[in-house]
């Protein structure tokens, strides 16, 4: 079968080679380096809105520890179902909410990314070794309806890139 010129190009062999390289590259990039995530839900608004596409670095946490303030993907089930949340507290810290203000080790944390302040109250609780506290930026819903909590280091896939 002869493919039309606009498909096969001037040199079909070279076009096929390029296509193979592109497919291989996509396999490596999206299989091992980046995880594309489509935003569903409102818990990270306004940072990430419904339908936004974000890319997660799969490699970052192989070389360094997660940092406070990073927006990260948390593995929920299998390898592709994730929650995207923000790390607000690190292993060993005490974390709680007082009238909607996040407190770390008893001191309020400045959170410029939170546009809609909540009225949440959560008694200070300790994080264990290797536990990171993650929460969404949108805190307009009742606390019990918001997916947040301590995630183990193993469940953190990586930070968002863009």
């Amino acid at each position: 079968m002869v493919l039309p010129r606009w498909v096969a190009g001037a040199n079909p062999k070279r076009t096929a080679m390029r296509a193979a390289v592109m497919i291989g590259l996509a396999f490596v990039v999206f299989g091992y380096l980046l995880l594309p995530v489509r935003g569903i839900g409102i818990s990270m608004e306004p940072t990430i809105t419904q339908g936004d596409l974000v890319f997660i670095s799969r490699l970052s946490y192989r070389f360094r520890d997660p940092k406070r303030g990073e927006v990260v993907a948390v593995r929920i089930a299998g390898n592709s179902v994730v929650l995207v949340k923000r790390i607000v507290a690190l292993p060993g810290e005490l974390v709680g909410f007082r009238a909607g203000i996040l407190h770390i080790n008893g001191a309020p944390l400045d959170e410029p990314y939170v546009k809609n302040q909540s009225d949440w109250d959560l008694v200070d609780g300790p994080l264990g070794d290797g536990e990171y506290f993650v929460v969404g930026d949108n805190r307009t819903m009742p606390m019990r309806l918001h997916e947040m909590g301590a995630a183990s280091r193993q469940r953190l896939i990586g930070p968002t890139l863009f």
Partner: protein
Amino acid sequence: MAALAGAAVYGWRVWFPNDEAQIHAVLERIADGISGDGEGDARRLARAASLLEEFDPDVTVDAGPPFDTLRGRDVILGAAAKMNGSVRNLDLSFDDVVIQVDAVRSQATANLTAEARFDDGGGAAVDARELDVSFTRIDGAWVVSAVTLVRPLRRLDQP
């Protein structure tokens, strides 16, 4: 000769499946039994009844707070049939299954992802959860003895 050997190995696996294969088969039958397209009550109950032998009579399902632990296969299958009736085109599958069988081959655990695709009235929806499923062998057959929802985030305001 190689083809003959391959056929022999294949036949052996089909007629004498190992523990992991048997457990995979149990999970497939459960997924097929719970999946459905919003059929009538009688059909739903018949499908639920067909799953009875896949569960230990004292099976428990623990979804964590705020839900109570469900106990007994009749209660659990009734709940599954009810769920099937409340959504349309339910398609349940178990993926990423990792099975560990104990040394005496009487108990086993499977860590897996349960993925449900369904029509909730407002359009297609997907829900996926990680589960730990315990199996026990009764009269030579593997049956589900406990299902525990794995909570990826530990709530500080709940036990």
